[in-house]
């Protein structure tokens, strides 16, 4: 049909198809906003005298780029904190950029690759480990010991240690970040539903309330509607981490790098979580979750027990029912309980022009009394400062009443999330994807973990050595 034109059009097809494939992958990152809030401070404030001993060269001018993620509420909090920081130090300007959470690491890594790393930014979990290993972050150890702003005895060790990394083990080695927050993953319950069923509330003390009691209570609370569908569930989104750890199992042994999901303790705990919906019918099935997730159901008063983090507080304050938090149910085999303690950190770029000022900003945001107060009043976090968390934070006249649970998790039975032991989470993502076979009952947990272990081990070895 065409002689000469043929190759032209064929090669054109090829170029076009490659072009579409290869250039189709860039996502538009133009939704972030950056704003420089100029410090128009009146010179006669008394803050200047107060800040004399804070930073070494307090009069030198500097501009720090600070990047974080978050929705409108987080953005508002940080704009406020930064404005007060700039008021305190009129010569230090901060350029604050907010990125939507889902795009954050894409944006950050592109900036790093382009050698435009922000001076101070958020990092946590596996990504933090990767950034340290790649030599992107500034070692903060010497500044920490010389700084007068930081009293390490008054900061949660569990939070600070999350930002020590020696290349293999988190918690060892030098400091590369300061905690933005500590996030105890707590166990919330709807008091009204417990009252209605005439049940006592779950205990706030670790080890008193067990899996068996929880199932018994959940069965009494679960009700069906006239169409035969379950309307109110006893529990939703039960944390697999909590179950596995409480039962004495774990995903990986960090020392040997062995994936340990094929132990009986692990399988039993996983089966317990799966059976909440499969056998006991007290928790939404994957199908139910797809239709309406646990969070929506809990907020609608249709779930009695549901996990929450401190950042959920503002959303839960407006609920039309009474709620509180309790200790996670304990495994009857060990009598112990566990949950994860999340954290996100402020880190400093190695290539920053102003290492001292960057550290000063990070420590202000992380540990300054006013900024920490602001944070907990707005229901964003548990304070990083121990005296504040155990003092005024406990007195706050808002739900949850039993705030001690948050503290217990931090001090006692909270553990770093699973991903903290790796640099790459591909193996963990694969586990979650494949685990649906257990949640929907196609396989038992014991069968599944046997088959899955070699696969995960391979992925783990490839990406984390």
């Amino acid at each position, binding site marked *: 049909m065409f002689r000469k034109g043929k190759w032209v059009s064929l090669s054109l097809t090829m170029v076009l198809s490659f072009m579409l494939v290869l250039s189709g992958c860039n996502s538009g990152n133009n939704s972030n906003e950056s704003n420089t809030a100029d410090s128009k401070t009146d010179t006669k404030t008394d803050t200047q005298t107060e800040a004399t001993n804070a930073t070494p060269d307090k009069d030198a001018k500097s501009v720090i780029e600070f990047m974080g993620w978050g929705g409108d509420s987080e953005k508002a909090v940080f704009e406020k904190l930064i404005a007060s920081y700039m008021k305190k130090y009129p010569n230090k300007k901060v350029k604050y950029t907010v990125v939507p959470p889902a795009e954050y690491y894409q944006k950050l*890594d592109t900036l790093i690759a382009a050698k435009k790393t922000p001076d101070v930014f958020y990092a946590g979990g596996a990504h933090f480990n990767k950034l340290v290993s790649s030599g992107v972050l500034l070692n903060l150890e010497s500044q920490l010991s010389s700084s007068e702003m930081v009293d390490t005895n008054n900061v949660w060790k569990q939070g600070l240690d999350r930002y020590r990394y020696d290349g293999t083990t988190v918690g060892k080695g030098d400091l590369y970040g300061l905690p933005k927050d500590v996030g105890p993953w707590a166990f919330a319950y709807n008091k009204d539903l417990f009252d209605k069923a005439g049940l006592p509330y779950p205990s706030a003390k670790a080890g008193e309330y067990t899996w068996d009691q929880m199932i018994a209570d959940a069965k009494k609370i679960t009700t069906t509607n006239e169409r035969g569908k379950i309307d109110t569930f006893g529990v939703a989104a039960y944390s697999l981490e909590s179950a596995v750890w409480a039962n004495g199992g774990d995903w990986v042994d960090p020392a040997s790098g062995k994936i340990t999901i094929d132990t009986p303790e692990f399988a039993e705990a996983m089966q317990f979580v799966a059976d909440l919906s499969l056998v006991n019918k007290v928790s939404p099935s994957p199908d139910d979750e797809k239709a309406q997730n646990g969070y929506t159901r809990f907020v609608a008063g249709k779930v009695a027990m549901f996990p929450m983090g401190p950042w959920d507080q503002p959303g839960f304050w407006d609920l039309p029912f009474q709620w509180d938090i309790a200790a996670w149910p304990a495994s009857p085999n060990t009598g112990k309980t566990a949950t994860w303690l999340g954290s996100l950190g402020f880190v400093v770029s190695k290539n920053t022009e102003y290492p001292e000022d960057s550290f000063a900003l990070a420590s202000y945001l992380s540990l300054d009394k006013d900024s920490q107060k602001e944070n907990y009043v707005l229901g964003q976090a548990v304070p990083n400062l121990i005296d504040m968390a155990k003092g005024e934070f406990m007195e706050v006249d808002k739900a949850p009443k039993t705030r001690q649970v948050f503290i217990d998790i931090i001090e006692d039975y909270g553990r770093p999330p699973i991903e903290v032991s790796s640099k790459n989470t591909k193996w963990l993502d694969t586990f979650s994807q494949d685990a649906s076979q257990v949640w*929907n009952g196609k396989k038992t947990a014991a069968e599944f973990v046997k088959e899955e272990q070699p696969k995960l081990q391979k992925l783990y070895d490839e990406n984390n050595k």
Partner: protein
Amino acid sequence: MKNKTPGYRRKEIIWSLLFIAPPILGFLIFSLTPLITSFGLSFMSWDMFTPAKFTGTENFQYMFADEKFYKSLFNTVFLLLGVPIGMMISMMLAILMNRSLKGISIFRTIYYIPVISPIIAVSLLWQWLLNFDYGIINEFIWNIFGIQGPNWLGDSNWVKPSFIIMGLWGGVGGNMVLYLAGLQGIPSSYYEAAQVDGASRWHQFKHITLPLLSPIHFYVVVMGVIGTFQSFSQMYILAADGGPEYSGATIVYYIFQEAFKYFNMGYASAVAWVLGILIFILTLFQFRISKRWVYQD
């Protein structure tokens, strides 16, 4: 003859070069450079921070042993089922719309609207339509047949059919317009001659309409196959983690995850090149066999 270019001619040449500069520069910067770079990267390991390391064919070896690569390739091939189905529906629609009725342009517009709707909005809309408990589709199935509809986006067997249905809804309008143009290009004298010879409606369709539309069929198949191989946005919205048991992940989705979640840029480039070559071979093949069935006048 070649020593002097007249002044006005030189001016014209400069102007013409200036006019073609933006698209050429755009092509060089945004297409050719990434193309060459990614080719080089496909033989390297690069996480964007540390300098790229040459690893030879390691990426390709890994790919051919990677379960997820095959899964996403299979999912993508499965979605190709939507191409013939879409062709049939859009041709039928075009025939229905090819009448001189009053207000026919309104109908044509209605069928074309999904084509110009943003894919993200369409995906979110379908997320509601396909909801297991509250979706209008399952509600409809319950009311008409009295049975519980499938868990469209939550069941690994139904995720891909859901994507196909969504793709049909969004795609038939565009092809319908192409078919409409094709239909209007068929001279009515052919049909008149056939009628004189006593051909039935079916015979007219089979022996006149269908063959004379073959260039359109060809175009629709080629573009449909390429488009399906590149589908990404719907999966990104509706199966953000790859769907149950990775049943909703397409190959471009897989590339995206590798590149922007795990930052294996070298490996992602390698997969992208394999995909590109695959599309190229398929398209070449289609061009080859087109000689046998595409009617050119």
